């Protein structure tokens, strides 16, 4: 909000070749009452796209080797373990539009979609406690399975009352005496390690808006939005006010915001047997799950998580299915509310300097914990007369973290913005101080240097330093001491007694640390109102970087890097085709294009060398309903026995949705050749039902870790095409498109197994089925030939397109080749509205090859059959492809005049008329295509 004034001004100037006079005019626009230009409104109109990738570094994991090849338990074998788990990766896609509804009313909308997956720490503990679950595989000394996990730990380590830790020296069996010898403390090691858990991909989607009204020296705005994840939903609203004083030398901003968020987290079934074993000090929150499992109750218990928090922990446990599958579910639900207010001030100091000041206060209540973070509590029991100088045997367990249910935060920030005249550069320095009643104080310093390089280029290096102190209730783990009477066995009061604190967390975000990051951003402003931006940043989190020292130990250190690319279109600055009187021929072709259904691509080559077009294309397809065998519904028995080839099917898909977001960038390099680049982003969601003997009911797949639902998303395959005008006539044209897609989409998307029982109780990752992968993995040829014609208000056309996969991909398979033929007609109803109708025939072959048999992470090449637990018809490559007939019904809207003249928005719904699948597949519901495009 506080930036609006400045952004407006700067967008005025966001063009190359600005003269001193223009600068002066722009400056005068600070007083719109004095000089108000219609262009002012138009320049607000902007459409932006941004993609970014976040990649974390691999964490160091240490383990205490439990036993070696001979089954002997050695002491002093704390070793760094190979960590095969992929670290967190996030792919983000952002689109936004800001438009002027009138000169004074502005509307902005943002859409953001993140897909993330990978391994993340859930707790930390001394290595010697063996809290890190290590696996000994197949008699080798490799210590790690697919997913190292926290586990309940008892009698695996020793601690003395000075806090030093020792591993265990097993006594072993004495063959002479014929007895087991007692274990004794082994080697001292205080090294701490994270315990990691890997997560299957998850998607977050956020939409938000802002509506503002500007007076000459004031503005108000109202905004709101929604952020949705499987396990978290957040709704928010905000109000803002800006007041300008002293001929706008001074601006005051006031903001108020409210957020209401619900947590609905499904806990990792692997964690049940330890994270719910405690906490000892809150007996109402322990033991119920295990109890319920014994009873076989379907819903164990619903109770207040603890009197300290408003969250409710609800645990459901269902009776085990037979065989491999056991479905247990524990859900943490909670609500939180955040109220925030801020007061800001910007002050023009000199003609080259501007000052920014801010104060903020946020009040949060409710369930403020992270449901996926656990805390280890280790226990020592001592008798009053016990020798406390020797290490004592430790037991312990992890439990879900508990943060206070209230948090008050204040921030103060200061920014200084200075124009460096000699270099025409902008220097921005900012400082922020933060303090809350959890005991955290932080300081943030960052600086940008924006250096214009001429010809529309600018380069911005930036550096940031952050340091925070730890929360009062943070520790990497907790220890408890109980003193008991050796005769009665009862606990007695003693100065040695140490209990768990009321609140506890081992989330490293609450630890003391410092972070240093730096990056660079490159910007290019093109003449036609198009701006490209690319940036990279590297970030390192280290305990040692904390101001004043005393940060967390090195085990918690990690780093990440991000890369982002953005495309910004200033609609006001674009030279629209519609606005240029280019003659009837072009007008005709534009009309023919406007009357083409949304689902048709590659039909339109640009008219003149130098012309450009930017478009956005969204496609959504849905499958649901019955499983078809060929064209007719198949019954469950037939699917179970025949749908998966040699094996029995355990699951069938219940629904599948796919969303694709594509950018459509076209440039006419000559009058007859148009080049086209099409990056795309894909996300998919699938739910499954159990069938056959394992059908114990549908449990709803909403949980983030649920076996019944999968999600994937990220960058898809990138298209490159060349469009040739083969034939051009006032009423007819033929366009040939040659090109294809590069395999930029991932084909190694995996799902983590989450049922409790699998091979050797080892959690593993298996590939998601073929149609949940983000790309084909192959270079694909996609030629197409399009004929289109138009006379007055009527247009028609026909198109043939094909897809040919070149070779097989790195996972040893190739998706089926495709052919599609379309015939359509379009009719112009008014000067802005038209309708289309289309008939489509599609053929797709089955998949060639298949995923290789899985190989264990230990590298011993021990192979297992593929995806046993998730085995369904989609696991079989012959259950892909088929022959389809669809009817497409579309509506097209073209803005005839005004700021948005030449913008075209199209919708088309594809209704399946006939489906003839290869093998067994889920019925089709239909598909929606929506496109926006502007030519200039």
């Amino acid at each position: 909000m506080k930036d609006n004034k400045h952004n407006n001004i700067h967008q005025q100037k966001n063009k190359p070749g600005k003269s001193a006079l223009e600068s002066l005019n722009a400056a005068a626009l600070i007083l719109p009452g004095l000089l108000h230009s219609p262009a002012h409104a138009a320049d607000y109109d902007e459409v932006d796209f941004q993609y970014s990738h976040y990649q974390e570094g691999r964490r160091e994991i240490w383990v205490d080797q439990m036993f070696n090849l001979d089954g002997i338990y050695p002491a002093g074998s704390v070793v760094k373990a190979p960590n095969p788990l992929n670290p967190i990766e996030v792919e983000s896609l952002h689109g936004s539009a800001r438009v002027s509804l009138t000169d004074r009313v502005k509307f902005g909308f943002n859409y953001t979609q993140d897909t993330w997956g990978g391994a993340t720490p859930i707790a930390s503990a001394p290595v010697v406690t063996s809290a890190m679950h290590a696996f000994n595989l197949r008699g080798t000394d490799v210590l790690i399975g697919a997913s190292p996990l926290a586990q309940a730990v008892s009698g695996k380590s020793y601690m003395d009352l000075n806090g030093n830790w020792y591993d265990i020296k097993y006594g072993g069996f004495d063959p002479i005496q014929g007895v087991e010898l007692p274990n004794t403390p082994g080697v001292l090691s205080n090294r701490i390690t994270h315990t990691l858990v890997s997560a299957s991909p998850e998607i977050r989607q956020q939409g938000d808006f802002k509506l503002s009204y500007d007076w000459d020296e004031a503005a108000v705005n109202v905004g709101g939005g929604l952020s949705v994840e499987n396990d978290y939903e957040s709704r928010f609203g905000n109000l803002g006010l800006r007041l300008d004083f002293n001929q706008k030398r001074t601006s005051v901003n006031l903001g108020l915001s409210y957020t209401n968020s619900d947590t609905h987290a499904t806990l990792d079934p692997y964690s049940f047997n330890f994270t719910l074993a405690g906490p000892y000090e809150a007996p109402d929150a322990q033991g119920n799950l295990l109890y319920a499992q014994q009873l076989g109750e379907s819903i164990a218990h619903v109770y207040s998580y603890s009197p300290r928090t408003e969250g409710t922990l609800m645990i459901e446990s269902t009776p085990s299915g037979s065989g491999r599958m056991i479905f247990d579910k524990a859900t943490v639900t909670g609500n939180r509310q955040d109220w925030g207010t801020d007061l800001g001030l910007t002050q023009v100091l000199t003609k080259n300097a501007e000052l920014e000041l801010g104060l903020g206060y946020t009040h949060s209540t409710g369930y403020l914990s992270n449901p996926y973070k656990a805390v280890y509590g280790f226990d020592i029991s001592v008798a009053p007369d016990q020798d406390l100088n020797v290490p004592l045997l430790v037991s312990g367990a992890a439990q879900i973290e508990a943060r206070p249910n209230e948090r008050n935060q204040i921030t103060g920030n200061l920014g200084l913005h200075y124009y460096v005249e000699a270099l025409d550069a902008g220097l921005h320095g900012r400082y922020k101080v933060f303090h809350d009643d959890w005991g955290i104080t932080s300081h943030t310093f960052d600086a940008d240097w924006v250096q214009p390089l001429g010809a529309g280029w600018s380069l911005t290096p930036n550096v940031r330093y952050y340091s925070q102190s730890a929360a009062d209730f943070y520790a990497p783990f907790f220890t408890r001491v109980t003193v008991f009477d050796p005769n009665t066995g009862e606990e007695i009061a003693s100065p040695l007694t140490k209990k768990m604190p009321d609140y506890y967390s081992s989330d490293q975000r609450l630890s003391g640390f410092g972070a240093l990051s730096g990056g660079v951003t490159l910007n290019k402003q093109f003449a036609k109102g198009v701006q490209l931006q690319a940036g990279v940043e590297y970030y390192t989190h280290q305990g040692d970087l904390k101001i004043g020292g005393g940060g967390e130990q090195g085990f918690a250190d990690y780093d990440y890097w991000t890369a982002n690319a953005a495309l910004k279109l200033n609609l006001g600055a674009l030279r629209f085709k519609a606005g240029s009187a280019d003659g009837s021929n072009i007008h005709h072709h534009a009309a023919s294009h406007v009357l083409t259904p949304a689902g048709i691509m590659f039909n339109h080559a640009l008219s003149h060398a130098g012309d450009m077009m930017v478009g956005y294309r969204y496609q959504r397809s849905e499958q649901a309903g019955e499983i078809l065998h060929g064209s007719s519904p198949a019954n469950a028995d037939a699917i179970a026995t025949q749908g998966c080839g040699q094996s029995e099917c355990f699951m069938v898909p219940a629904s599948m949705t796919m969303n694709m977001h594509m950018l459509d960038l076209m440039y006419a390099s000559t009058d007859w050749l148009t080049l086209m680049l099409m990056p795309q982003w894909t996300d998919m969601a699938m739910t499954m039902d159990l069938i056959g003997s394992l059908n114990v009911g549908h449990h709803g797949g909403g949980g983030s870790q649920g076996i019944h639902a999968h999600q994937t998303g990220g960058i898809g395959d990138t298209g490159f095409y060349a469009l040739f005008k083969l034939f051009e006539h006032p009423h007819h044209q033929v366009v040939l498109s040659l090109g294809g897609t590069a395999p930029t989409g991932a084909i190694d998307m995996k799902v983590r197994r989450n049922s409790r029982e699998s091979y050797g109780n080892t959690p593993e990752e298996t590939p998601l089925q073929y149609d949940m992968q983000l790309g084909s993995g192959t270079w694909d040829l996609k030629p197409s030939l399009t004929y289109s014609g138009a006379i007055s208000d009527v247009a028609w056309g026909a198109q043939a397109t094909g897809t040919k996969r070149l070779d097989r991909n790195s996972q040893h398979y190739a998706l089926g080749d495709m052919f599609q033929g379309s015939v359509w007609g379009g009719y112009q109803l008014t000067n802005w509205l038209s309708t289309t109708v289309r008939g489509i025939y599609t053929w797709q072959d089955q998949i060639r090859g298949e995923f290789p048999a899985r190989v264990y992470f230990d590298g011993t090449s021990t192979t297992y059959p593929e995806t046993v637990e998730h085995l369904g018809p989609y696991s079989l490559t012959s259950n892909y492809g088929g022959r389809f007939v669809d009817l497409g019904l579309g509506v097209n809207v073209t803005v005839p005049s005004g700021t948005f003249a030449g913008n075209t928005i199209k919708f088309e719904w594809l209704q399946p008329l006939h489906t003839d699948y290869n093998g067994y597949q889920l019925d089709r519901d239909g598909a929606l295509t929506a496109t926006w495009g502007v030519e200039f």
Partner: protein
Amino acid sequence: MQSRKHLVLALSIGLCACAPVQPWERGNLAKPQMALDPHPLQSSLRGHNYGSREATAGGNAAQGGGCGCY
């Protein structure tokens, strides 16, 4: 708290000591490199990363951003 007093002091000096900058003298401040946030798209992205990795989230609570529970 001490630092805040200094800020207020600095601000009052800033407000009074400079000759008023007239609207037609603000050409430099109107340049894109002098926007208070020169790269708003990118900074909201980076801010989201920091917010989900650091304890300091204040001031941005109502911008959404999800759980960041990883």
